[in-house]
């Protein structure tokens, strides 16, 4: 009699512990995603996202996808985005370039570049950044798989991220996948760009192929063809071909609206 009582109580305690360990982070994560069927979900802050791309030469697309999401998280109270990269990988992957950020539609003043020696320092810097309320997102560029970045490390990061409300984007390369506690895992590939008006030979608006490999959050679809414009990330349905919607290129910062007489509204 006593033993069953005890077993029941043990089971109840185990459930409680499991609840404490797992659920809050996931539930919060779910609440940060707004679902609209067919369209790309609006993702809030506090998520650990892994962005995998097959090869290092896709580094530009992966960074673009991460910064596109990070731009939506920047606000007056959270003005900064931290970009982490190993000092030895700059020549392989390239450094974020100020004028390029501008033409992509990201304010270069918001980006702080941190060059670290090894993955251990990178994790340290990421945790420091997560401890700061003013950071909107942390983007870490990890060129090669590392043993230091194991399940424990990613679990730590995901909990910290959920707690701080700051998103972490780990840009990773290759087709191998390790166990990780990331809320979302993407496989991102560049896609042939859209048609440029009046010039068929030139590269047009950017297109990415994003596939959600992990994350139970989205049930309807797991693959999108994405475009990037001043309205943010948008899914492009294949039948429309992406040629009909022509939004302007993204602008890096908020621009005051112009009145009819051409004078700015503020000032």
């Amino acid at each position, binding site marked *: 009699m006593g033993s069953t009582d005890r077993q029941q109580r043990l089971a109840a305690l185990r459930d409680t512990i499991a609840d404490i360990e797992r659920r809050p982070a996931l539930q919060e994560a779910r609440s940060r995603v707004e679902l609209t069927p067919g369209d790309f979900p609006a993702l809030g802050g506090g998520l650990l996202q892994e962005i995998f791309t097959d090869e290092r*030469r*896709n*580094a*530009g*697309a992966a*960074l*673009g*996808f991460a*910064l596109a999401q990070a731009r939506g998280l920047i606000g*007056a*109270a*959270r*003005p*900064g985005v*931290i970009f982490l990269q190993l*000092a030895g990988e*700059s*020549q392989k*992957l*390239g*450094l*974020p*370039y*100020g*004028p*390029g*950020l*501008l*033409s*992509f539609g990201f304010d*270069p*003043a918001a*980006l*702080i*570049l*941190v*060059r*670290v020696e090894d993955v251990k*320092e990178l994790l*340290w*810097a990421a945790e*420091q*950044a997560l*401890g*700061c*309320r*003013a*950071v909107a997102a942390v983007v870490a560029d990890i060129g090669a798989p590392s043993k230091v970045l194991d399940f424990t490390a990613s679990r730590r990061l995901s909990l910290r991220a959920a707690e701080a409300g700051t998103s972490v984007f780990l840009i990773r390369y290759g087709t191998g996948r390790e166990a990780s506690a990331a809320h979302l895992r993407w496989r991102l*590939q*560049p*896609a*042939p*760009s859209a048609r*440029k008006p009046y*010039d068929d*030979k*030139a*590269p*047009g608006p*950017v297109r990415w192929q994003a596939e959600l490999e992990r994350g139970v959050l989205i049930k309807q679809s797991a693959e999108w063809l994405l475009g990037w414009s001043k309205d943010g990330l948008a899914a492009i349905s294949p039948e429309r071909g992406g040629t009909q919607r022509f939004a302007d290129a993204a602008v890096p910062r908020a621009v005051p609206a112009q009145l009819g007489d051409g004078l700015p509204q503020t000032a």
Partner: protein
Amino acid sequence: MRRFLVLFLPNWATDYLKRRDYQLRAPLALYERIRGGLRLAAVDSEGQRRGLHVGQTLADAKALLPELTAMEMDRPLLEAAFAEFADWHSNASPLVSVMTDVSGFGDLVLDITGVAHLFGGERAMLRMLLTRLRDLGYTVAGAIAPTIGAAWAVSHYARSQVVEAADMQTVLDALPVAALRLDPFQTGTLAQMGLKTIGQLRGRERKPLSARFGASLLLRLDQALGHVEERMTPRLPVAERYAERRFADPIALMDDVLMTTHDLAIQLGIRLEAEGLGAQSFHLFLYRVDHKVMSLSVNSARPTRDPEHITQLFAHRAERLSGEYDAGFGIDMIRLAVSSVGELDAVQFGAFQVESGAEDLDQLNDRMSSRLGALAVLRTEFVASHIPERAARLKPALVVSNERPAENATSGTLRPLRLLPAPEVVAIAAEVPDGLPAAMTWRRERYRLVKAAGPERLGAEWWRSGRRLELVAPPPPPKPGEPEEDRPYLPQIDRFDPEAETRDYYVVEDDAGRRFWVFRLGLYGGPVPPVWYLHGFFP
């Protein structure tokens, strides 16, 4: 009224060497080449007791004491070591200076105005300093007096004592004239004249003395008596605001040091807050028992007085240091000093605080810079230039510049999201030489390029070239009868070649949708065949 403490270590050179290398045997003497002969320059106390003296030839000394250990004197080494030794004394008073009037080492002066009470009075302070050095094996004498000159005179020519302002004249009068830091010629002549003590000199007419011995004699006399002020230059930068703590027993663990730093930061923070100030640079001095000083410095992007932040910066700095940290036999005093002080108004923390993201971000930058190094945390700054790699530069985030950043010179044109620090050579094939690129080989892989846009031609910045500014001799004047050379004269230098430096940039896209930024350096048909480079990646 100022108070000065002079320490006189007559045998410092030999004492120091013996302390450094315990195998050196007494008697020890150091020799130097003086006037063409090897003569003794320093003798230890054992040698002096047995009849050696400075200036003796080395051969005589060796004959007198066959067991003598003689070494050549290394003045630069000794002077550097003495300077470090002097720095250590800043744990008694922050104003320490080496007196080099007579020798590069051996005399120390401390400005102890307003400091002595920390040691229980001047007498106790002098006793503490002397005992401390004697315990370490140094021969030392010291004196405290209202002027540097008087303290020096007493420490060299009388027993160690504290001289009050009222007694100074009496004490000085009894001392020999050599106590005025005079050169040997002056002392010799004064002795011939029968002027042996300072008292005799003081009563004399000033004019004849000045005429015979020069102004320096009277200057020294006035300095000793306090009629003319003598200045000292402290070795370490003077920090007006600092907090310090002494330990009865030396500490060694870094954790203890950091805890003390936190306490000191709180003390200092309260003082700074009362004055409405904040500081940007913080220096931690760790005084080791074995007379060495370690210093750590950290910087902050904006003025601060937050103890938590300051301690955290030192903790991160210490983590980077770990291997180099060596407490030796322990640390018996820690001083935290601030510099680059700026105004910082009082802020109220709490309920109505407005969240300022920029301040938090600066603190994060400080923390990361103190651990990873200032050059690891960077921000983009635009430069007015159209050359892509010059148009933006990365600047330490700690540096806050007041100047207005340059406008981005290339706004409106498409630029890549990632730029390679060094462009990489690629092979490009095109259908016609000046046509759009059709295939590319980069890092041994071949890309079929389906779309391309360009070229965007970027010329070199000729105003940076500087080649035509080289100075050349003017042409020789024309001989009579010959026609004069054309004016203006243009020297025969290689002209700046715009064609070799011009780049044509293309945006290219391969069949998978990857977009690259490639450029061709040089033009077809130019003197140098053009080379293609890959410079960046588009999203």
